[in-house]
Structure formats: structure tokens, C-alpha cells
């Protein structure tokens, strides 16, 4: 019923006629299956995808539920336990201020996950809006794409550093520093899909019965853009974790008093000779998070967009 309320007159008429149609259509309807449901069933059989989801779920639970897994405060200094090797009490050892590395890694991962989630969500919106406008309206295409080309002329890391230099090293600015270089790349994926989709008959049909541009974009084009976009955004999640880790490693990420995976790796660099585990565990956490999301991305690509299969 809701579906019909959202339709315009001709679409509703077509739908009504199809309701009254004969057996052949009923058979067709029986054969029709929800493609997302199909993708879900296929994904369950995708080995790398399942491994990716498992890694990601375990890591997310560990980081988000950090207080459940460690009673230690990541910022609590203890001068009596400086640079301790891994033990039952401190599974990853302690740092040069006697802080528990296990809790610093668990809490540090929260920043990575938060930054990556926000960047992925925001760039999905900005990328879809810019990509859809650019792909659907040729007049806007030149303007939007030239601006995107300018942003993409800079290497990603250099632009992120430049953004932090301009905005200052703060949590929100790190997110901005990632959104700026990532948005054009997502917009290009959306634009490319829209450009090829808008030439198809179903769009011409919708246009010919007077469906508005916004409705065509939202109801008819974007659902078809979703599979490549979803795959692309899983990689954005991984890249965000890597760049955020890099910025914090360089000391120009979030405020130094907050534990992040990148900053803990950086602190451990000074003790590499005698305490290699110091920087090993936080680096491993970054690698596992990114590996998990990349495996998930590969799995999603295999089931949603097999043409892109690597």
C-alpha cells in the first residue's frame, strides 16, 4: 500500500494492470527473487567475505567494548611498571610511562573505528550527491568534475597533511582531512554508474511518463548505483583507518593525550631495539581491521558486482 502511495498516476496504473494480468505474469512473479536476498545467500557461501566479517566483528567488539575486556585506564601512568614485557597482568606489556599497552590498543582502536565510520558515512552522502548531480546533469558535470580533478591532483596523504596544516591537528579536522581527498573518488564511482545507467530504456521510460528528475535519481538510478558504491565504501573504510593511523603516527592527528593506534606505534619506535612488541601489537590491530574490511569488500564485490571481480 505504501509503495502505491509513493507512485505517480501512470506508474500506479501500470502496477494495477500488472496485478490483473494472467498466469504468465504470476509465474514470472514467482520466479522473481529479491536480488539483495540472493546476494545475502551467496555471501554466506563466500569464504573470504565470512573471514572478513568475523575479523571485523571480533575487532569491533574488542574495541567498542574495551572497558569489558580491560579494567585498566589507558591514560593511567604507573612509575613502578615502566616498559614491562607482556605478562598475565599486562598482556601487551607497558609503555615508557607505565601505561597498560593492551588497554591503549583497545581504546586506541575506538578512534580508528570512529574516524573510519564517520568518513565512510559522510563521503557516501557527499559522493552520491556530487556524483549524481554530475552524472545526471551534463551542465553541472564539467564544473563539479573540474573541482574534483583539482582535489585529485594532490596525492592523498599530501592533501591530508595540507588539510591538517590548514585546519590544525584536532579530532574533527582529521575527519575533514580524510573527507576532502576521498569524496572525489567516491563521486567518480557514482558518476560513472549514473552516466551509463541514464542511457538505459527504463530511465527513458520514466522520463517519457513525466517522472521528475529527483525521483528518477533517487528511485530508479541510485538503487542500481548501490552495489558498486557499497563495495567502494568498504575500501574507503580501510583507507581511512590507514591514513588516520599515518597522521597519528606523524603526530599531526588527534590531540597527543588521546591514545590512538598510530600514536602508540610511533611511541614504540623509540624502543624498537629492546621492546619490539611495543609497536607490534598496535600495528597488528590496524592491519587486522583493514584486512577484515578489505576481505569483506572483496566478498561483497563477488556477490554484488561480479564484473569487478579481481
Amino acid at each position, binding site marked *: 500500500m505504501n509503495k502505491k502511495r509513493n507512485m505517480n498516476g501512470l506508474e500506479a496504473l501500470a502496477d494495477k494492470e500488472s496485478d490483473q494480468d494472467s498466469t504468465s505474469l504470476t509465474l514470472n512473479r514467482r520466479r522473481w527473487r529479491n536480488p539483495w536476498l540472493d546476494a545475502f545467500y551467496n555471501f554466506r557461501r563466500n569464504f573470504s567475505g565470512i573471514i572478513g566479517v568475523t575479523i571485523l566483528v571480533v575487532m569491533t567488539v574488542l574495541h567498542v567494548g574495551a572497558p569489558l575486556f580491560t579494567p585498566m585506564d589507558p591514560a593511567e601512568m604507573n612509575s613502578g611498571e615502566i616498559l614491562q614485557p607482556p605478562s598475565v597482568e599486562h598482556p601487551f606489556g607497558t609503555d615508557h610511562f607505565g601505561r597498560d599497552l593492551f588497554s591503549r590498543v583497545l581504546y586506541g582502536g575506538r578512534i580508528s573505528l570512529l574516524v573510519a565510520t564517520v568518513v565512510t558515512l559522510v563521503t557516501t552522502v557527499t559522493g552520491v550527491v556530487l556524483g549524481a548531480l554530475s552524472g545526471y546533469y551534463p551542465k553541472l558535470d564539467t564544473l563539479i568534475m573540474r573541482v574534483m580533478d583539482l582535489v585529485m591532483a594532490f596525492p*592523498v596523504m599530501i592533501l591530508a597533511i595540507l588539510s591538517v596544516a590548514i585546519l590544525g591537528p584536532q579530532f574533527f579536522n582529521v575527519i575533514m582531512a580524510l573527507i576532502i581527498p576521498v569524496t572525489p573518488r567516491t563521486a567518480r564511482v557514482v558518476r560513472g554508474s549514473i552516466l551509463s545507467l541514464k542511457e538505459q530504456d527504463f530511465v527513458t521510460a520514466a522520463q517519457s511518463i513525466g517522472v521528475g528528475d529527483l525521483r528518477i535519481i533517487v528511485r530508479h538510478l541510485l538503487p542500481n548505483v548501490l552495489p558498486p558504491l557499497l563495495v567502494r565504501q568498504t575500501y574507503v573504510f*580501510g583507507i581511512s583507518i590507514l591514513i588516520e593511523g599515518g597522521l597519528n603516527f606523524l603526530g*599531526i592527528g588527534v590531540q597527543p593525550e588521546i591514545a590512538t593506534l598510530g600514536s602508540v606505534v610511533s611511541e*614504540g619506535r623509540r624502543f624498537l*631495539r629492546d621492546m619490539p612488541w611495543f609497536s607490534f601489537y598496535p600495528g597488528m590491530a590496524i592491519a587486522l581491521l583493514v*584486512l577484515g574490511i578489505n576481505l569483506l569488500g572483496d566478498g561483497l564485490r563477488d556477490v554484488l558486482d561480479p564484473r569487478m571481480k*579481481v
Partner: protein
Amino acid sequence: MTRYVVRRLLVFVPALMVVAIFVGLMIDLMPGDPAMLLVGIESPGEAINKKRIELGLDRPIHERLAEWVFNALQGDFGESYFLNQTVTETIAERYEVTISLAVFALVVGIVVGVPIGIIASVKQGQFIDWLVTTSALLWLSIPGFWIALNLIFLFSVSLGWFPMAGFVPITENPLNFLKHLVLPATSMGLGLSGIIARFTRTSMLEVLRQDYICTARAKGLCQRVVLLRHALRNALIPIITMVGIGFGDMLGGAVLTELIFSMPGVGRMVLDAVKRRDYPVVQGGVFVVTATYLAVNLVVDMLYAWADPRIHYE
């Protein structure tokens, strides 16, 4: 081909100008007053005004910008606030380090990535294919700075095979130059090799399904000739694109690697300048790195035309 090259060069110049304008606007894009940030927020208004005049910030924006772009396109980026030398001199001293690093990392990426990508495509569906695709994904998931630390621990601290830090110019001692570059270039190139291997595999698989490959095999050519002469040349185009993009990643990643291996490169110079708020050095460094990236992409576009003569500039 000549016409294509000339027209591509004509697009390169305005692109460089737009980048120069954007980098030139950097000081004006910053929230707050750069003069106040440099002398300190609590300094008296007089000192801030003096600094503003010294930096030329009292002049209209279009005038300053036009001057910056005009000078930048001629390689003049002004004076550093702290280093007591011109930005151009500072960059000139460090450019060799960054370029050597990026080029060697690219070489590692190609030398490792392309052959294993080809092997995976030939052995599609077999264990070796799974091994290559999985390890490629693993390499591109691991942060380069963490690989670098592990390589230092393994090959410098434990085995003592390579130096931990520093850079030796190629003109001074070619062997030492190579020794100092092995670990940094490997730490950056491994991730890239993962990406290149995946691209090579996909690209080769597409080409290997074509009829002309079947014809080449039918007329009795050996596997090596079919793969390298017939398939790889056509599979090269997406790989070349990836190499162009990868070079940008290497230039950006050089900031981290130069810091870890204490190499006096442009990336580390930019990072230090960001921390010191030495804006002319940040601007000059970012402009030079971006201009290099654009130039490499120009070369990449020309390589397309070489790899596929059907490509014409529209």
C-alpha cells in the same frame, strides 16, 4: 603521436596553475590570523601587525596570490621563516631523496606485483592463485609504517644486513645508496605490489579470454611468447594507470618513510614545516610534490599511447 603529446602538454600547464592557485590560497584558507599564530595569541597587537606587514598579509589577496603563482611557476617559493634560506634551495637539497625513494618503491611494486599477477592469472583457480590474491590483499592492508618498523627490527637490529637510517647520494657511493634504500623502498613498495598484482591478474584474465590469444596458441607459439608478447602488452593499460596512481601514493607515503628512516627528504621537510608553521616551506613542498605527481601522470598518459596506439586525445 606528436600532436597528442603537444595537446597533453597544453593541458598540463593550466592544471599546474590551478594547483599553484590552490596552494597559494593556503594561508588565507586557515581559520584565524596566521600572523597571530606565528607571534603567539597573547602578543601585543603591535607585534602582530608588524608580523602581518612582514608576511605581506596587509596587501590585497589577489595581488599576493598573483605574485605567488607567478613566482611558483618559475620555481621561486619565497624564504623560509626559520631555515634562513630560500624554499627553493631547501627543496633542491631534499628532492633527490624523495624521488629516489618513490622510484625505488615503484620498482619494488612493479617487480614483485606484475610477475605474481601474471602467475596468478595463468594458474587461475589453483592454490597458487589463492595464495597470490590472499597475500596481495594482506600486503595492501598492512600500514607501510608498521612494515618499515618490522623490517628495521628484522634486517637492521637483528641481522644487521642493512643500515637503520640515513641516505647516501648516488654520486657519493652507489652501493651505499642502494643499501640505504632497500628497506625504505621495500616497506613502501610491498603495499603497492599487492595492488599491482591484483590489477595485473584481472587485466591478464580479461585479455587471456580473447580470441587472438587462442589464435596465437593455435599457431604453436610457446606460452612465454603468448603471455609476454601478446597478452601482457594489451593487459598493460590498466596496470600503467595503477602505476601512475601508485606513484602519487609513494610520494605521499614518503613522508612517513622519511621520518622512520631519518631521511632528509621533501616529505619530512613538509612535516617539520607543518609543525613549525613555516608556511612558505609547506606551500613550496606541497606544490613541488603535486607538480611531480602531475608530471608523472603526464608521462603515464604518453605511455598509454605507446601501449595502445588506438588511443587519441579527444
